[in-house]
């Protein structure tokens, strides 16, 4: 799965996710990637999120919109909201994977409960960061 969250100079956020799903999946199984609110969500009032992981858990927790709701309605900063949903709630359910996220103010977060996640970030005027583990 691949995903991106972007903030443009007009202050607009967008999020997108694309995937091939799971190896040897059957019965027309669909994961969270195409489910708005689970694998992908963007709202200029709070944040944008793209997810990767065991889709069934991300769907049940509506992970992407849940993170943004914590930012918008409970005032959590983006990293804290992301860590609460991925590190606490997703992990407690037995789900695994991660997210990348971005606010209209340019705050960037990523959070994952797997040993690794291919990830990268860049802000205007900043240095690119690429990480795996």
């Amino acid at each position, binding site marked *: 799965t691949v995903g991106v969250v972007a903030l443009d100079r007009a202050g*607009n956020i967008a999020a997108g996710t694309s*995937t091939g799903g799971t190896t040897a999946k059957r019965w027309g199984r669909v994961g969270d990637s195409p489910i708005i609110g689970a694998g992908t969500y963007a709202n200029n009032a709070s944040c944008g999120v793209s997810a990767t992981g065991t889709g069934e858990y991300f769907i049940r927790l509506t992970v992407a919109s849940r993170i943004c709701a914590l930012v918008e309605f409970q005032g959590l900063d983006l990293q804290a909201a992301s860590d609460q949903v991925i590190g606490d709630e997703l992990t407690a359910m037995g789900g695994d994977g991660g997210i990348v996220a971005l606010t209209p103010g340019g705050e960037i977060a990523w959070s994952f409960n797997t040993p690794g996640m291919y*990830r990268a*970030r860049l802000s205007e005027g900043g240095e690119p960061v690429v990480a795996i583990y």
Partner: protein
Amino acid sequence: GRWALVIHGGAGVIERGAMTPEREAEYRDAMNAALVRGEAVLDQGGSALDAIEAVIHGMEDDPLFNAGRGAVFTAAGRNELDASIMDGASLEAGAVAGVTQVRHPISLARAVMDNSRHVMLQGEGAETFAREQELEIVPPAYFFTERRWAAMERSLGALGLPIPSRPDGAPAPTGVDHGELDRDAREHRFG
């Protein structure tokens, strides 16, 4: 305002030291290239939506990633692709599921958002819409990679399920790195 960009290329049991230095360098280069594509759009004042498409197009074309070319196979020996996109300014969204012949599913998701009354289209209907929108259509074998095919064969064998025929138009079988398949089995358990 200032632009910003954050990208993922999948998560899983990616173990330090288990990946070859060459393969790790390929992933790092691909992630850097993705940042460059996004920067090229955003630094010129382009929209966040255009940046999403530009970044993901390259990742959908890169066999390293489980999306587009490089997607994993279903138990039926097909590549079924899913994608979604959402605009935070308007809360408009588009998504597609189970498409097999659209080179860039993220662009089809955007077309659903921009040019239909709907949020999600799936399967054959989504591909009909893609043709109407004049998006690039490719034969299913375009998405074939030996690495993913071998991973599917291994998974089906473990489940005791039959191995499907290679897709029409797929290249002749070639050898695969079984150490790499072991790593893939851990890393790409999920999408």
